[in-house]
């Protein structure tokens, strides 16, 4: 240990007070109650049940969402099957034009989507406005162009549509995940039954409105809502040809098992526990920004979050000090405020899960550190958290927490850090920070992960394939490779 010298401290509370900068919410249109979007129309659920969706930042009810049961799922699948016959025969050029329309309509209504996304899911308005919604529109725009060019994507093969795709998406990027699923499915001539997560159904239902306005033929996209039970009904429906799931590794494994006796094609985009590796020759201030973006982006509700920090031992003290200083500047609070960096935890259930991991981490002997920020008295919030002196066997190091919680380990050699980074069942993403090009390529080729960010972190683009190795799933979303899961060659 180096001798402790007195560091100057910064008092951000007095020096860095921001005036509130609240996003206007008056322009949005929301119904009190939402039904299921099947065959181009909103229809009452057979279950006759609705459940409430809450704003996690205020705990206030926003609207009521229909709960789809087996009969509703069957109705949606039948509509999608009926629509498939026509949709797969429409000329590819025209198919593409429908998808372009959807992209444009999202761009036109972008701010309304952003506000609702933040209201329903708790993510900072800055992120929903600048990342989620524009990327969702871009994703439709990108795949629209593929529709009439598929013969160039697969040399020597003639790609054929699969049929009806059942798609189940998570609550961390609700509209963006809907776009990742629907856009390539439509471009390749499939029809869709999509289920958003039960805590974040609203932007998917607004997308249903938009799809209605776009004139897309009835039944090509069906959006049904509900919780795990509804998802299971989709997975088990005999007339579905393809399941695409994004969510936890546990549920992904259940789905893989459930469809074992069928010919359903499957893609899984599951959990992660990414190593973010800082070498001593890295530009440390940039690396600290990357650490912060890696773990605190979207409250850490990110499957590819850089949740395991590995710092080379000789710079660990300085990196940790800079990181702690930077954490003091993070604004935790009202997600609708444009100054907010870290918004609300998506649900009470998720907050309990994160808090439980905080207890586990402490009990295992890692040193907890949290920024000194206050958190609102109402709503679900979690302070940005570090676990220092964590070790490879700790549960907080091995398991996905899905919250603003970063474990920190140190290393001396490249061999050691590669070994530690790869010694985990997950393999979704990784980060590397160094100024040396050859070291970057050494690391990026040895890390067993589907996405590797070098000297950057948490960047996404519709042209860029995304997906995991090992227990983080299989199949890719985005780019040319994202077409493959939706065609038969």
């Amino acid at each position, binding site marked *: 240990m180096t001798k402790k010298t007195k560091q100057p401290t910064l008092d951000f509370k007095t020096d860095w007070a921001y005036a509130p900068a609240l996003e206007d919410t008056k322009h949005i249109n929301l119904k009190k109650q939402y039904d299921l979007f099947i065959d181009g129309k909103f229809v009452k659920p057979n279950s006759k049940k609705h459940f409430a969706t809450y704003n996690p930042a205020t705990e206030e009810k926003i609207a009521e969402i229909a709960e789809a049961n087996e009969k509703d799922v069957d109705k949606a699948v039948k509509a999608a099957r009926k629509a498939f016959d026509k949709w797969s025969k429409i000329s590819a050029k025209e198919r593409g034009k429908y998808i372009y329309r959807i992209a444009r309509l999202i761009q036109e209504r972008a701010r309304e989507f952003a506000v609702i996304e933040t209201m329903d899911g708790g993510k900072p308005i800055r992120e929903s406005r600048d990342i989620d919604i524009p990327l969702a529109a871009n994703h439709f725009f990108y795949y629209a162009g593929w529709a009439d060019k598929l013969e160039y994507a697969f040399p020597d093969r003639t790609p054929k549509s699969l049929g009806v795709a059942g798609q189940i998406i998570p609550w961390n990027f609700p509209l963006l995940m809907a776009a990742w699923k629907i856009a390539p499915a439509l471009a390749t001539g499939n029809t869709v039954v999509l289920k958003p997560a039960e805590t974040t159904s609203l932007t998917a239902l607004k997308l249903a409105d938009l799809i209605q306005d776009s004139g897309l033929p009835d039944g090509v996209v069906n959006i049904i809502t509900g919780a795990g039970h509804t998802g299971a009904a989709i997975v088990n429906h005999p007339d579905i040809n393809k399941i695409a799931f994004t969510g936890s590794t546990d549920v992904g494994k259940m789905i893989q098992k459930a469809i074992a006796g069928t010919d359903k094609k499957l893609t899984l985009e599951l959990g992660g526990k990414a190593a973010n590796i800082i070498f001593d020759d890295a530009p440390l201030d940039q690396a600290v920004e990357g650490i912060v973006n890696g773990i605190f982006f979207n409250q850490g509700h990110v499957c590819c979050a850089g949740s395991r920090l590995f710092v080379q031992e000789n710079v660990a003290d300085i990196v940790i000090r800079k990181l702690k200083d930077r954490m003091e500047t993070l604004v935790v609070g009202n997600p609708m405020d444009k100054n907010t960096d870290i918004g609300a935890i998506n649900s009470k259930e998720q907050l309990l899960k994160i808090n439980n991991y905080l207890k586990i981490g402490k009990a295992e002997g890692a040193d907890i550190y949290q920024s000194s920020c206050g958190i609102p008295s109402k709503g679900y919030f979690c302070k940005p958290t570090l676990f220092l002196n964590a070790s490879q066997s700790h549960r907080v190091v091995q398991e996905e927490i899905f919250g603003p919680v970063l474990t920190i380990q140190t290393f001396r050699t490249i061999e050691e850090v590669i070994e530690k980074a790869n010694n985990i069942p997950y393999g979704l993403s990784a980060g590397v920070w160094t100024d040396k090009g050859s070291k970057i390529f050494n690391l990026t080729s040895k890390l067993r992960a589907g996405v590797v960010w070098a000297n950057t972190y948490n960047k996404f683009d519709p042209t860029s394939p995304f997906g995991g190795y090992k227990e983080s799933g*299989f199949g890719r979303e985005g780019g040319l490779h994202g077409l493959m899961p939706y065609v038969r060659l």
Partner: protein
Amino acid sequence: MPRIEIQKTYKIFINGQFPRTESGRYYPLKNKKGDVIANICLSSRKDFRNAVVAARGAFGGWSGRAAFNRSQILYRIAEMMEGRKEQFIAELVAQNTPVKAAKHEVEEAIDTMVYYAGWCDKYQALFSSVNPVASSHYNFSVPEPTGVVAIIASEYLSLIGLVSAIAPVIAGGNTCVVLASESMPLCAVTFAEVLNTSDLSAGVVNILTGKSEELHTHFSTHLDVNAILYCRNNKSEIKTIKENASLNVKRVFVYENDLKLIKAQGPYFIFDFQEIKTTWHPIENIGSSKGGY
């Protein structure tokens, strides 16, 4: 007195060596007349686990080799097969394949190996992409091998089926553990001898003989196997394999129909056992290229 022929002992192939099965069990292989022509190892779970250790150990070295070098080694395998051509034909004939069909199968098998030798350093160009992201980053995607692949090879196409399953898997940098045809295992053991004299590193291909009925559960539950390729058509085994695969999210491929075609070839068979890795790096935007650019 006529010379007594030396009969061959058919053994399994693990980590570049030819042990007998640790189980000590065997099954007799008979020809059409009912004569026993060989005693074949009935491999056990322990043999499989040893083979997976060997395959995992070989993975870093094999996937890390230059693609050109992998290509040369696969070509070398084809050369060695050509030298053993008559032996392969004789074994197929001994296992009741008509002479003409046997000759055709062996020739196709050798040509298939040459075909995939050529792909070793080419599929990457086909399945890679440079992705024009909207932000200031350089972004590209490349295929990388999935890891250790467990293969239950074709029951009826005992040589061409075996080669068509193994070649794309190792051309792509994976290592594998293979269960040979139960009713026609002779060529698989001879093929192991070919591999062992082809500069292929120990452990890259491991070949077991025995019963799928006994082994498919172990193949599919092993947590250090990344993918499984099943080339038979037993529906209940397929279901069990797919269910067990979910334990560690194994990739499962069933070539039930594909390998009935003797010419089941193409880079997409390599692609099945590849993972796509996408790498991002920022591009600095300082200075200006001005008009001269």
